[in-house]
């Protein structure tokens, strides 16, 4: 992981030191290539010295970077225990001899989850470790197995979406499929997608549109328009996040690390498209309705006090499938695909239909286009 383009302040003692060592460019780590001068200590020696000094913490980030380097884990733990309630709970359970193995393991997992780093900056091993912990934690708590992926963005993929206004009939099958696919809170009836019912001949009057109709559809003299997260290429929500808990992936998906989010809701205020949702209370999904095919950045279970939003069903789209809304739509109003593939259907739509986007003047560059037949 290269840290040259880092723009945040995080103590990365390990990383900078490592870059300083293997810098000859010949690829070898021993002093065999011509570019090493002899008065330098050899890279091998230097590496050994660095290893001795900082051990294997060179690639860790966030909390780990600081605390593992400066002092041993136990000291750090003890110091933080006093101030962090959840940590205190975990430690007391893990220290107690009377509690069972399971409880101990749970506490251990909770502890490590509480103090893990930002997913965006994790190494692959760390990512796998946290996914394993989450799967294990679910197993311990619910006695059920889930399947969680941490698949990265694929090369040469940029996801885009098109919505055919003339086709949408307002059945809301997409909304339903989305809720079931993405394990959204059933209590607060959280929905990522909104379908706006607009009157013919009035243009796009969102303020007069009804996004919570309940009558037979399509209603006479109305048309329907769906909105959700548009996965902007220049997303204002990403800029404003104080902790980089949300970012744009290489395949264009704007995702959230639910465990890194501090819940300040600044991104919500910054989103011009009403794309983001907040867990005002602990989200609840009946056990039998939980979608167990999950992705770390997608539909895994959230906790209270964090943001979430449409991810174009990252757990599906990165596996080649269409998002749940696209698959559920009975009218074919929703088109999804790879913007970089010149032969893809989404590209044909963009090149051959009269497409437009919402609030284009804001410069957010949404990757969600509307068109009509």
């Amino acid at each position, binding site marked *: 992981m290269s840290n040259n383009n880092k723009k945040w302040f995080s103590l990365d003692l390990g990383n900078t030191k490592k870059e300083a060592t293997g810098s000859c460019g010949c690829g070898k780590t021993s002093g065999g290539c011509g570019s090493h001068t002899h008065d330098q200590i050899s890279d091998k020696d230097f590496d050994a010295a660095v290893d001795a000094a900082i051990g294997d913490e060179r690639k860790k980030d966030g909390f780990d970077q600081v605390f593992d380097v400066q002092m041993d884990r136990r000291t750090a733990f003890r110091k933080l225990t006093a101030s962090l309630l959840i940590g205190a709970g975990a430690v007391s359970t893990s220290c107690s001899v009377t509690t069972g193995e399971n409880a101990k393991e749970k506490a251990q997992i909770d502890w490590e989850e509480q103090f893990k780093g930002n997913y965006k900056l994790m190494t692959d091993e760390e990512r796998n470790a946290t996914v394993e912990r989450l799967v294990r934690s679910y197993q311990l708590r619910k006695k059920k197995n889930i399947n969680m992926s941490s698949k990265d963005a694929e090369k040469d993929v940029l996801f885009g979406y098109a919505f055919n206004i003339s086709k949408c009939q307002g059945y809301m099958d997409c909304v339903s499929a989305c809720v079931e696919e993405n394990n959204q809170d059933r209590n607060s009836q959280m929905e990522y997608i909104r379908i706006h019912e607009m009157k013919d001949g009035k243009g796009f009057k969102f303020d007069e549109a009804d996004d919570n109709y309940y009558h037979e559809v399509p209603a006479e003299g109305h048309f329907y328009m769906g909105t959700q997260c548009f996965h902007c290429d220049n997303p204002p929500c990403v800029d404003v996040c104080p902790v980089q808990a949300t970012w744009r992936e290489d395949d264009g998906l704007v995702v959230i690390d639910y465990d890194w989010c501090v819940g300040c809701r600044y991104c919500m*205020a*910054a989103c011009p*498209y009403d794309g983001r949702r907040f867990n005002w209370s602990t989200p609840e999904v009946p056990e039998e309705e939980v979608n167990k095919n999950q992705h770390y950045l997608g539909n895994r279970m959230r906790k209270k006090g964090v943001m979430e939003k449409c991810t174009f069903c990252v757990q599906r789209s990165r596996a080649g499938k269409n998002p749940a809304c696209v698959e559920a739509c009975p009218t074919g109003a929703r088109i999804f695909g790879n913007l970089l593939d010149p032969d893809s259907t989404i590209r044909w739509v963009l090149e051959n239909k009269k497409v437009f986007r919402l609030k284009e003047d804001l410069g957010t560059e949404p990757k969600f286009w509307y068109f009509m037949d």
Partner: protein
Amino acid sequence: MRRLKVFRSLVKDSLDTTTQGSKRYHIWMAFLTFVMLIGMYCYSIQLEYGLSATGMTDRVSWGLYISNFTFLVGVAAAAVMLVMPTYVLKDIDFKQAVLIGEGLAVAALIMCLAFVVADMGGPSVLWHMIPGLGVFNFPNSMLTWDVLVLNGYLFLNISIPFYILFRRYQGKVPNPKIYVPGAILSVFWAVAIHLVTAFLYQGLQARPFWNNALLGPRFLASAFAAGPALIILVLAIIRTFTEFKIEDKTIKKIGMIVTVAAQINLIMLVSELFKEFYAPTHHSESAYYLFFGLHGKTALLPWIWTAIPLNVLATVLLTFGKLRNNLKVLYFCCFILFIAIWIEKGFGLIVPGFIPGPYGKIAEYTPTGIEIGVTLGIWALGAFVFTILAKTAIKIETGRLRFKTK
């Protein structure tokens, strides 16, 4: 070594000072503690049930907490209006007032931070925001700027008065070469904290109500009216209840500051109203909602129509020198101005920013009891902190608290 000894003695003495006092003082502190406990109880409920215990929704996602935060940043920034003339322009008049002002700034900043923490969805992972430990999205996120400037300002406002008091405590004269640069820095810093807080809102293209160039300057103007107004009221109280001498001249001079700031604020208000209502676009809907209600939703009308007349009345009264120099009128004006700006820069600014929503949908916001409880608790915390700071400072300044060499 000696310094450490003096410091230890100072802490002990100030503890003595703050725990002893008249009956009225004890009742006051007990009352504040009680309110704080209520606030903590409410916060514990909020922690358990999440922010659903508040009136906020996906539609109006910031409410009472952020409103108060915004207003208090202004109060904190206003301390500069006293610092500048005293330290930089060497106007001796303000010297007694300045420590009170900085104490007020410290209290306001602590309240600001408390409001921000109360507003967080995940307070247990707030360490993600600490530079070094977590990931600090600087300079992209204005919120990280705000964290930096607020904490920096807090540090400045603690260290400068502390230095002065520490010297006085030992019976020495503070060295201007040490504190004047700090004071100058804090002048710039105070402008920065309020401007940065304004930019927090101003930089959001999603919210046209906030996304206007006048927001920052208006923040400053209103802050320099409301902050010193509060200082005047506090000075008036201190004058009555303690032996700390504050001359009429000082209060009148601060009154002058309040007047000018209030006048500028009013001009900007007129400019804003003109822009919103002369040629209204759909971006003016938030302003319509605030002042006249939209589609039958009128929750903010009583608030804003309290604030505007109070604001105008106070500014007009203050404009006449004769009325302003009458202390009773001045106190009254300061009080109503403070209330008016609290509404305007709090509720009247934050809530309409979210109404109507990005797609024109209107969901109104009413704070819940829990939310009000936490808010009152934090205000009590601020008053508590300020009382402690002021009591120690006054005792040292009046020379009754001195380091005794054994």
